[in-house]
């Protein structure tokens, strides 16, 4: 216990990540069922049924960060996958064929669990996985919310699917759902999400003790450990560390000062993580927040399946432009954001095809500058360092001008 307490949250993060994957490989070796699931799905159901779960998006990101993606991408493209589809999907389909990555191995699934609140893409991708591997697929279809709020009809439809998913899981495992255990998982999920939110909220402090690129790393565990004791412990520890840093007045980095505070919109460019990070840091630019903290804030009344449905279908990616504008605006206000860097991520059409309009609206409404750069979450070929740096420079120049105006009192923010 004493030893554990000595760990920093970063060490714990690495330890838990290793434990997550080793545990999954071990479970598979022991003949226990393994599910592959999407990144924001009600996996409380899986945990309550003792099904070990791994997340292909996390895995693809890890492969991308280790600069290993091309091998899998080329394999998938060889099978006929277009280079225009999501690179997480291409990496994952390639992995299904090759079955080994130096970055990390994962067990092959016995069950596919897919939730379309993050995109329609996972419906097709996971459909292909189930077909290719001849295994059952549980789909939770969460229609895009074109109205500002989640409609009652959609809630009812998703609730019906949650009930159906429970039946499918009972068929799959051969035993009944233990609703007490499900309630425990829901409780734990709620508690962990609160710590995730409270930790990421430290980005509001100026200077921010939170380095946004760290958040990218912690994100992997809010994906897979919301309903576990480990996840709960991690995010609480991270919160406490950030709290201490904030109280000591420490910024995001030891070696540089935070000069500008931005939102990075979209997923990281994993294969170019270090380049994208260092370029920002060079100019003193810190990503203080993004739309992701709220995306995994999945809090609802324990045992309330309607609440669960509303919460899971209500993340940013599944919401209309007016909601997007409001969320962005409140982030800008609450986190003292001075600029936005939009990642036009070739893999993620759902984010891309709204970002032009979101950009216009926040420029009009909040008066802060923003730029868009071309990249991709895992395909290293769709990124130009020269373009990226030029765009970042442009953003910095505009932010600096705003700062100057503000100093002169011309800008009312």
């Amino acid at each position: 216990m004493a030893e554990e307490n000595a760990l920093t949250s970063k060490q714990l993060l690495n330890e838990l990540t290793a434990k997550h994957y080793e545990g999954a490989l071990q479970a598979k070796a022991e003949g226990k069922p393994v599910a592959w699931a999407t990144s924001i799905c009600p996996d409380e159901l899986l945990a309550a049924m003792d099904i070990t779960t791994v997340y292909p998006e996390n895995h693809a990101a890890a492969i991308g960060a280790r600069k290993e993606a091309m091998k899998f991408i080329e394999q998938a493209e060889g099978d006929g996958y277009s280079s225009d589809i999501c690179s997480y999907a291409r990496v994952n389909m390639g992995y299904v064929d090759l079955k080994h990555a130096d970055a990390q191995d994962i067990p092959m699934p016995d069950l596919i669990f897919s939730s379309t609140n993050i995109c329609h893409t996972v419906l097709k991708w996971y459909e292909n996985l189930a077909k290719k591997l001849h295994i059952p697929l549980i789909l939770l279809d969460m229609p895009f919310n074109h109205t500002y709020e989640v409609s009652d009809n959609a809630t009812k439809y998703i609730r019906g699917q949650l009930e159906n998913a429970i039946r499918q899981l009972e068929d799959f495992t051969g035993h009944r759902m233990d609703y007490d255990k499900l309630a425990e998982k829901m409780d734990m999920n709620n508690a962990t999400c609160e710590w995730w939110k409270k930790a990421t909220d430290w980005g509001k402090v100026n200077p921010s003790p939170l380095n946004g690129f760290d958040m990218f790393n912690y994100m992997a565990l809010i994906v897979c450990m919301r309903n576990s004791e480990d996840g709960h412990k991690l995010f609480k520890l991270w919160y406490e560390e950030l709290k201490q840093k904030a109280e000591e007045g420490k910024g995001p980095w030891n070696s540089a000062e935070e000069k500008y505070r931005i939102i990075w919109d979209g997923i990281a460019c994993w294969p170019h993580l270090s380049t994208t990070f260092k370029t920002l840091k060079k100019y003193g630019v810190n990503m203080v927040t993004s739309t992701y903290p709220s995306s995994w804030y999945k809090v609802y009344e324990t045992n309330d399946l309607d609440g669960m449905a509303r919460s899971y279908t209500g993340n940013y990616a599944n919401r209309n432009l007016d909601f997007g504008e409001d969320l962005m605006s409140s982030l800008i206000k609450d986190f003292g954001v001075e600029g936005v860097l939009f990642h036009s991520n070739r893999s993620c059409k759902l984010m891309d095809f709204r970002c032009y309009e979101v950009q216009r609206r926040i420029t009009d409404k909040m008066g802060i500058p923003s730029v868009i750069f071309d990249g991709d979450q895992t395909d290293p070929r769709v990124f130009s360092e020269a373009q990226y740096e030029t765009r970042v420079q442009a953003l910095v120049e505009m932010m600096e001008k705003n700062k100057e105006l503000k100093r002169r009192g011309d800008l009312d923010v």
Partner: protein
Amino acid sequence: MYRDTIEKMAFNGLNPGKAIEETKASTGKDLVGVFPIRTPEEIVYAAGCVPVGMWGGRTELSLADRYLQSFCCSIMRTNLEYALRGVYNDVKAVIIPSFCDSMKCVIENWKLALPQIPTIALAYPQQRRLQAGLEFTVSEIKRVKHELELALHKIITNEQVEEAFSVYENYRKAMREFTTLAADHPDIITAKKRYLIMKAGSYMDKAVYTDMIREINEGLKEEAPSTFKGIRAIVTGIMVEPAEILDIFEENGIALVGDDLAIGSRLWRTPSRDEVEDVYLKMAYIIYDIEGDTFFFDPDKKKGSMLISMKDELKADCVIVMMIKFCDPEEYDYPIYKAELEEAGIPHLYLEVDEQMTGFEQHRTRIQSFSEMIL
């Protein structure tokens, strides 16, 4: 003479603008724009309007860049371009279903691009075979009806919906017969004619259109058996565009004897259920019963086996894949049925297209090589 009707239909398929003008003039009805695919046109028809298909077209894209990057599919980009240019200023409402991530965003952008015209978004459930899904389909269709009532300022009665449904049932039945007959007469219903006749339906009043299709069907029944010696192909995809591709098919002796197109047979190949009484439920059951459609959840991924059995039934030689670039759902299906076609030893030609393309030399070479390979 039914051959004149064929020409008339092919003209309409090739000239949507003129066809729509004529429809408006001859019926005196208002127009409601319907995006691909499978919008519940019956509701629009019941309201006394003509639903007009919005399948993009060939134009220069510039205004659409305000909302969309270049890697968005050309149908969506073109529709937005047209909207911003005022091409749709005449329609009373636009209905857009969201079948992919691009469409979700286009709906959101559309509301801004065409603020004066009501945009009705529609989400069919992917879990259409669960009770909750079936109920959701019904609730969505009824919601579209209600929103249309608000947009048109008129009540749509259940009787009107029932009548419209029966017009559409007749249309679907006539189309099933047409595609069967067309397969027997590829020399009369050539690749281009077949496609354009099917497409013309998007721009005409379905009652008028159905009468013309029936006339063609009767004419074809009188014809002597075909002596067609060319290549009999099955085509799959959203559409076969631009039309130059069809000319190249014809130059190389390729006929389309069967189709799995979003603008074609996918619209009418699923029959309705006689035993179901309620018209909204009847419409929902068609969605329920759809098989092997790229845009509806299909864990068995039946498209490949459907293409293979279509190939056998129609004695076809090959499959042609018309891939509209940046269409994610179609692109995901391809590797799966590609492997199945290869396994079955069925040659297939993969053509990647977009509506804006103007150079056809590479495609000409591909198509000609493919026909050389088969003959």
